[in-house]
């Protein structure tokens, strides 16, 4: 007397499943592979709010950094960060200058003798110092860069201005476009 076969669906050639799922598994893996290939990790792209300021008229042709006194609607605590390019071909910065709108001449923060990272740290210290004297929420910064400066350096200066506590940041047209 043989035992009842515990697997009534077993045949001599293996298990006879009522539902054939092999093609379904196959398609599932195909779809999975597709979405794995097209998967992008969390987006790193973000936005930089842009404010556009008008350039003030330059002074004498050989002294473009001397600007007239601020207009009646200009905030007295506006600070200008000026970035000068050394070599137009490479677009790398050479000088960083800072000027309050009430001052006649900008003050050089860093030159070619230091690295760009060091220049940015010095700029941040100076801006934090100016921020303490500034009129709270109304303090504004204008970034004046040479036209040949690469966009990456402009963004790094923007970062420093933000981390120094300035929220109103405007970009000024480069000298060649004024």
């Amino acid at each position: 007397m043989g035992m009842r076969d515990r697997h009534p669906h077993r045949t001599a050639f293996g298990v006879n499943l009522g539902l054939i799922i092999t093609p379904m598994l196959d398609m599932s893996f195909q779809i999975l592979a597709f979405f794995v290939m097209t998967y992008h990790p969390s987006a790193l792209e973000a936005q930089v709010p842009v404010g556009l300021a008008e350039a003030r008229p330059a002074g004498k042709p050989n002294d473009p950094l001397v600007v007239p006194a601020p207009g009646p609607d200009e905030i007295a605590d506006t600070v200008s960060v000026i970035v000068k390019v050394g070599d137009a071909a490479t677009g790398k910065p050479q000088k960083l200058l800072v000027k309050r709108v009430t001052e006649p001449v900008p003050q050089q923060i860093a030159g070619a003798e230091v690295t760009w990272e060091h220049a940015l740290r010095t700029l941040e210290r100076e801006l934090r110092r100016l921020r303490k004297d500034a009129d709270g929420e109304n303090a504004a910064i204008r970034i004046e860069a040479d036209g040949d400066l690469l966009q990456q350096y402009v963004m790094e200066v923007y970062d420093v201005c933000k981390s120094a506590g300035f929220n109103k940041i405007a970009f000024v047209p480069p000298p060649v476009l004024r």
Partner: protein
Amino acid sequence: MATNVGSEAADPNLVPLLDLVLQLIMFFMITVNFVRVDQFDDSIHLPVAQSAVPMDKTAEEWVFLNLNKKGDLVGTLSSFVLDTPEKIKVHLMQEKSSLERAAKSRGKTGDIKIVIILRADKECKYADVWKVLDSCQRAGFKYWQLRAMTRAS
């Protein structure tokens, strides 16, 4: 009464496997992000700005401008010859009009918030970025944003 001991093959239980596979498929389907070709250009490497803020999603319409390192507008705009600020301004004015018309035909009233999204390469010159932004301003756009990466990829 003879019994066959040890002759039964182990049948793999496919239910948990299917369950997990479908879970994974669901995850990737939900997180997939198909972007329009005219919005992003892979040749543009954005600069890094750690203080960049999350994207503003209140815009009703967008105009994507991709600027490569040479200062040329690429992507779908590469078929146009937009080599002067005036040409860029004229093209943007036409784009603005068509977006406003399309929005009004959908029943929108009042001002349509159209945002210019400028994706400028990190090696693009500041003068070229300014040229495009100035053209946008002169074309009548009020909202614009520069795109940057929050960290190096």
